[in-house]
C-alpha cells in the first residue's frame, strides 16, 4: 500500500495592511531557501508594480497561471494542477484570502493551498489580519469596511508558523504617499479607510496579539508531541468547558457565532451551535435562515444542531443540560428594546432557567461601527 505523503508545512506572513512588506519577506526567505539548494517555485505572485518586490522574484521558477474565461473576460488564477504536477518542495503563494473566479475547481485560494499541503508541498503565503474570519466584525467596527474575503481561523491554525511582518504606521503612510503601494487615485481612496493612522494602529495591535496567540498555542501544542495540524491547531481542548451558541434567523447570529468561536478557541473550549426554529409552514423562511447561519458555523468548524420547537428558552436550556454545556452565548434582539421587560425577550428567561450555567449576552458590534470620526490624519 503506498504511503500517503506527509503533509506539507504552511507558513503565513501576517501583516496589517497592504505595503507592510509581507510579499517582500516571503520572497526573501524563498531566496534564502533557494540559495541553500531547496526546490522553490512561485505558485502565484501579484507584482502590484512594486519595484523592490519584483526584483526579488529574479531567479525563481514561476509556474504559469491558468487563464479562465468568465463571461467573455479573461482572468488569471493560480494553476494548482500544474503545481501539483511540478511538485516542488516549497511553493510561494501570494494573497492567501483571494477568491477565485467562478467556475474554478475551488472557490478560494486557501482551498487550493490546502490541496498543495495535502500533496506534501510546503507553502509560504501572505495575508493581512483583517481577513481573519473571527475578527471580521471588529475590523468593520474599526475601519468601517466589511471585508468580504475571509479565512476561517482553523485554516490559520493549520500553519506550522505564523510570522508577523511589522512596520511603523508612519513609515507605511510615507510609502503610501510616495506612491510605492498604490497608484495615486487608489492611494487617495485607501487613505480614507484602512490607511488612517488610528485604524492602522488598531489593526497592527490586533495582528501583534493574534501572532502572540498563534505562537503561544503552538508552544503549548509542542508539549503534546503532536504537529499542530493533527491536533487541529491550538487544540488541547478542555473538555470540561463547553460553549453553546444560540442561532436564530436574526442576522446578528453570524457575529454571535464568530465571537463565541473566538472565545472558545482562546480559552481552549469546545463550541457547539444550536439553531432553534419554530415548526409549521409559516416559519419556513425562519428555518431556512437559521439553517443558513448554521451552515456558516459549520464552515468555521463549529459543530451544529437544528431543533424544531416553539419555545426557545426551554428547548435551549434542556439541550444544554443534556449535553453538559457550561456556558451559553446569546444575542440581544435589539428591536424589542421598547417593550416592557416581561415581554421583551427570552434573555431573562434563559438566565433564570439555566441555573448553574453562565450566560453571555454578546454585543452586536456592528451597531457601534456607525460612530466614525471625520478625517483625522495629521501627518
Amino acid at each position: 500500500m503506498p504511503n500517503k505523503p506527509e503533509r506539507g508545512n504552511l507558513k503565513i506572513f501576517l501583516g496589517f495592511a497592504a505595503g507592510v512588506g509581507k510579499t517582500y519577506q516571503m520572497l526573501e526567505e524563498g531566496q534564502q531557501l533557494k540559495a541553500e539548494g531547496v526546490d522553490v517555485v512561485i505558485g502565484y505572485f501579484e507584482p502590484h508594480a512594486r519595484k523592490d518586490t519584483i526584483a526579488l522574484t529574479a531567479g525563481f521558477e514561476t509556474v504559469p497561471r491558468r487563464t479562465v474565461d468568465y463571461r467573455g473576460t479573461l482572468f488569471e488564477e493560480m494553476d494548482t494542477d500544474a503545481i501539483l504536477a511540478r511538485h516542488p518542495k516549497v511553493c510561494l503563494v501570494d494573497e492567501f484570502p483571494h477568491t477565485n473566479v467562478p467556475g474554478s475547481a475551488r472557490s478560494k485560494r486557501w482551498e487550493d493551498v490546502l490541496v498543495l499541503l495535502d500533496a506534501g508541498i510546503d507553502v509560504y503565503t501572505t495575508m493581512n489580519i483583517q481577513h481573519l474570519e473571527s475578527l471580521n466584525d471588529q475590523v468593520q467596527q474599526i475601519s468601517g469596511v466589511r471585508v468580504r474575503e475571509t479565512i476561517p481561523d482553523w485554516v490559520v491554525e493549520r500553519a506550522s508558523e505564523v510570522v508577523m511582518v511589522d512596520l511603523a504606521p508612519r513609515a507605511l503612510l510615507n510609502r503610501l504617499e510616495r506612491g510605492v503601494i498604490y497608484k495615486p487615485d487608489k492611494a487617495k481612496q485607501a487613505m480614507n479607510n484602512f490607511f488612517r493612522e488610528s485604524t492602522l494602529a488598531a489593526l497592527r495591535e490586533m495582528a501583534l496579539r493574534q501572532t502572540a496567540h498563534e505562537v503561544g498555542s503552538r508552544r503549548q501544542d509542542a508539549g503534546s508531541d503532536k504537529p499542530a495540524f493533527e491536533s487541529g491547531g491550538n487544540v488541547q481542548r478542555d473538555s470540561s468547558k463547553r460553549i453553546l451558541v444560540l442561532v436564530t434567523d436574526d442576522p446578528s447570529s453570524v457575529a454571535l457565532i464568530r465571537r463565541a468561536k473566538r472565545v472558545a478557541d482562546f480559552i481552549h473550549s469546545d463550541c457547539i451551535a444550536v439553531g432553534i426554529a419554530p415548526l409549521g409552514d409559516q416559519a419556513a423562511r425562519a428555518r431556512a435562515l437559521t439553517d443558513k447561519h448554521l451552515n456558516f458555523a459549520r464552515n468555521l468548524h463549529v459543530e451544529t444542531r437544528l431543533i424544531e420547537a416553539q419555545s426557545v428558552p426551554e428547548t435551549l436550556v434542556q439541550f444544554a443540560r443534556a449535553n453538559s454545556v457550561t456556558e451559553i452565548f446569546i444575542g440581544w434582539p435589539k428591536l424589542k428594546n421598547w417593550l416592557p421587560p416581561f415581554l421583551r425577550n427570552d434573555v431573562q428567561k434563559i438566565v433564570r432557567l439555566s441555573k448553574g450555567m453562565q450566560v453571555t449576552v454578546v454585543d452586536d458590534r456592528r451597531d457601534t461601527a456607525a460612530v466614525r470620526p471625520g478625517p483625522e490624519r495629521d501627518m
Partner: protein
Amino acid sequence: MPTSALTRPDPDQLLRRVQAEEEYLRRGRLKIFLGYASGVGKSFRMLDEGRRRRERGQDVVVGAIQTVIESDISRLLQKLEIIPLKKVAGVETMDVDTILQRHPQVCLVDGLAHDNPPGSRHASRWQDVDELLAAGISVVTTINLGYIAELQDEVARIRNKRVDQSVPIDFIRRADEIVLVDAPPDAHILHDYASGETQAQDIDALRHRSAQLREIALVLAADVVDHQLECYLERNGIQQSYGTQERVLICLTPRANAARMLEIGGRIRDGFHGELVAAYVEQPKLAADQRSRLEANLELTRAFGVKVERLEGDPIDSILEFAHKRGITQVFVGHSMRDDWKARLIGTPLDKLLRKRRGFDVRVFPQL
C-alpha cells in the same frame, strides 16, 4: 464631565501644555527595533532604514554598531557615514561628544542596553541616547527583549541565563515608534542560543523557549501600540473604544461568586493576553452582614492579583461609564435566579445593564 466649554482654561495649565508641545517638537524622535533574541535581524533593519532615509535626503550617521559584523551588514555600512567608537579606559564606547558636535538629523545606535565603561558621561547607552534626543537628534536603535529591566526575571527564567545590562521599560514605552522584528526560531537563532554558556540542549527545549520569548515580545509590542493608539485617540478627541485588546471587568457585589468569576476571568485574560480588572459600586446603606461578604469578595479579588476600583453613584450607570472609559470588552455580573413578578414587570438592574450597554459582552454568573 464638566462643561469645559464654559470654564476658562487655567493659564498655567495652558502654558504647561504649550511647553510640553514645544519640548516634544524640540526633541528628536526615538524609534526602536525590538527583537526577542539576537540574530533575528534587528541591526540589519535599523541600518536598512538608515540607508533608505539617507536616500530620501536625510542626514544620517551611524553612532554605534556591534562588533561582530556579517557580510550583508557591512555592505549596508559602506553606504553610511560612521562616527567611530572611542576608547574610554581601554573599552570602546559611543562617541557622544562627536555626535553632538556633528549634529546629524538621525543617528543609528545599535544595542541600546550597552553598558558604558567607568568614566563615561553616562553609565548606560540608553542614557546617551536620551541626551541625543534632548539635543534634537532623532535616534533609531535596537534592543533585545532580555535587556528590558522589568522583563529580566521572566526572560532569565526562560533562558536560564541572566544579563547585567538593562533599559527601563518606561524608556521603551516612551518611544515614538516600536517595530517588532519577528522571526520563527530557525537554526540560526537556535545556534545562537546554544552557543551561550548553556549546556548542549535538545532542540525542542530551545524552540520552546524561543517561542515563549517571542510571545512576550509580541505582547510587549502590542501594549506599546495600544498605548500609542490611546494617546492618539485622546489627542484627536475621538471617543471610541476599539476593543483591540480583551479587557474583562468583574462587578463585585456581596453575593457575587467572586471565586468563579476570577477563575473564568483569569482564563480569558491569559488566553487573550488581555487585562482583568474588578470594580464595586459603593452602597451607603449596606447591612453589616452584606458589608462583610463584600469585603471578603474584595479581599479574594486582590489576593488573586486583580486591581479593584471603587465606583460611586447609580450602580449601573457608574459601571457603564467605567466600562466605556476603560475600553472593557466583557463585563461579568452576578444574577439572582429568583423569579419574582416585580422584576419581570419593571426589569432588574441586569436588564438595565443589558439594554444600555454598548461595545461589550455581558456574562451573567449565578450568584451564591
